[in-house]
């Protein structure tokens, strides 16, 4: 099963994402911010990245940009978790190379549906 890197500085959100995806059989590694995520992504190749946008120590958009620059992450799906008011964030995210987004608030079903969509 595919491996997913879940990045969020909020423990509850991270746990929710991780729990949901693990429940569906994915391998999930959690990271607490962009810096942590980048380190983890470099030591192991993930099939998909799900990241919060607003985080300390490297936000989600910069993270996506940095990841896209790595050969391993050129084409893999990367999703942003963003709030509905963040239209400009979506645009910035796309410019940085994000595949798409999941709009907060979302429930586990919506998350799974989207992940299944990008991972096939």
């Amino acid at each position, binding site marked *: 099963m595919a491996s997913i890197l879940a990045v969020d500085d909020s423990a509850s959100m991270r746990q929710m994402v991780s729990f949901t995806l693990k429940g569906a059989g994915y391998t999930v590694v959690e990271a607490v911010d962009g810096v942590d995520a980048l380190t983890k992504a470099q030591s192991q190749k993930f099939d998909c990245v799900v990241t919060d946008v607003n985080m*300390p120590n490297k936000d989600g958009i910069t993270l996506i940009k940095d990841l896209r620059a790595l050969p391993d992450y050129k084409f893999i*799906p990367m999703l942003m978790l963003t709030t509905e008011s963040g239209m400009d964030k979506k645009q910035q995210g796309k410019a940085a190379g994000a595949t798409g987004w999941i709009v907060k608030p979302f429930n*586990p079903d919506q998350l799974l549906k989207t992940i299944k969509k990008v991972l096939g």
Partner: protein
Amino acid sequence: MSIDMAQFHQVFFEESFEGLDIMESGLLNLDMGDVDSETINTIFRAAHSIKGGSGTFGFSSVANFTHVMETLLDEMRDGRRQVTQSAVDVLLGSVDCLREMMTAIQDESEVDEARVAEHKQALETELNGSETPVVKEDSTIAPEPSSSIPSNDEPTISGWKISFCPHTDLLKTGNDPVRMFRELAELGDLEVIVDFQGVPTLFELDPEECHLSWTLILKGDVARESIDDIFDWVEDECDLSVQSLSAAQSGIDEAATATTALETQAPIEAPKNSPSASTTEQSETPAPVKTPSKDKGASKAKPPAAKASGSIRVDTGKIDTLINMVGELVITQSMLSLVGEHFSLDKLDQLKNGLTQLERHTRELQESVMNIRMLPISFVFSRFPRLVHDLSNKLDKKIELKLVGEHTEVDKTVVELISDPLVHLVRNSLDHGIEMPADRLAAGKPETGTVTLEAYHRGGNIVIEVKDDGKGLNKDMLRQKAIEKGLIDEGTVLTDKQCYELIFMAGFSTAEAVTDVSGRGVGMDVVRRNIQSLGGNIEIISELGVGSTMAIHLPLTLAILDGQSIAVGDETYIVPLGSIIESINITDDMVNRVAGKGETFRLRDEYLPIVRMHDIFHVESAKAVNLIEGLIVVVEGQGVRCGLFVDDLLGQQQVVIKSLEANYRCVEGVSSATILGDGSVGLILDIPGLVRLSNQ
């Protein structure tokens, strides 16, 4: 798939309360003149996280409330809005309100809707005061998602013709046209016509780029939103037109080959619709909102578990140390069982080594476990900036709070119990200590008073000081007051220290009028009693016109103590190692006997009282009755020094402190008890209590 979202609630509440604390301290740190963007950003991020989490976990009232705060903060962050004191105050109030809301939700009690509405109103007023149209639009769109969806019930459509011409960079965002087609195929009958025209020659071809375009015929009763949904992520990376089959019927062929001027209009239309696509997701949010309400019923069966479990946040480093130690312990244990399996005398050395190791590991393990309970005092200090901010406003005083030694670690229990007494002391300093600005200027002091909260370790104690540069305690006034109140006699002679201690007497209050700041009823006597019940004491240093310092001395941990065992006859007592200064042998000629005042001996420049343990504890089996037969252990506790006369010193060990009062009573001269190596109970001595006993 059903996931019980309630399992994440506890974590969500914990991090939200932390977030609120961060917001609060951030807001208090904002300097109006020179706003630090990183501080604003931190505050914003905390609000944003709470909003995101509360929405996801179904606390929509919290989410709605935080949304307004977030909008305000967002504008401040972008520099679109000036950071004003009034905005900060409104935000601070909102932080409190939010904290109450979340506490109420957590306790499943009633949320004070009126208060919430009031704060929300204040926020909105603040927000609209210097309203920028962009924001206004933003905040009104959110609550009415359906208004922007034009017409949901279009006449039944037989299908759609989609012309999809991705830009060359599409693949670089991880989007795959095949994935989108697969999704479209799930909606209805899909016919895919590919157009190779844009593909360059093999020589020029960059395999990472996309040069294909497609015409897709989707047949079936499919809502336009479902299609927009699929292309939502790539709308900016492609030229897209979606036409209903009936309308497009005539021009299929043209559309398949070229993008006409008319159709370039279509992609602009698509993004217009896309917010509605994302709001369709939003209109589904009643689902997550309902989930928790269902959960509520389920969690009602086990709320005590969630609430009673006082959790503690532990540094992972501490846990790693612990795991390492357990590892070593296991190794030692297996080594010892090997020795024991085929034991012979020649293995005695191995056995001894093993036992020494075991002892070391046990001790280290114990230390590490205790260490887990240690928290920085900042957990207590962090509430004071707010308190000082609010109170100095209320009192019209200018006061700066300084926090020193916030990282000093102290036992969790101490952290929990010291908070209230400290609040009382700080309030007192603000109310009675620091003078009004005018008075300060008149006295030649800076207009702004300073209150310092400082924590540091000294010996086995933590010392917490509340220091102010206010007017200091007036000894004569204190004395007069005490006489008026009938607490002391007119003729009583008091030292400075005793004078200050008058304020700890029940029924003593120096406030000329009871103010709502220092409160009514609960006095300094209660503060002192609470501190004493933690095994600590409080001491006052004051100078008239210069300021006062209240120093609280507390044991570092309430659970464990380094002890020295002493023998008195066949009884064993424990003296806290930290209170032992030295042990000496003395002879009779070193002793002064003052009639009615007991015995003293001279230690360097000091005369110390001799406390004969066998005497005051009535130990009949005592071996040493003459001073030369035993030992004098010089001890100090809470500023009191004396020489304990005992039979002998035994070993030193760490002891686990057990309450004597839980089932029994408080015994003069004894602070608590412990369980000794042989399973019997040993009493831990209380030095000031012993001196009092000896004086009786």
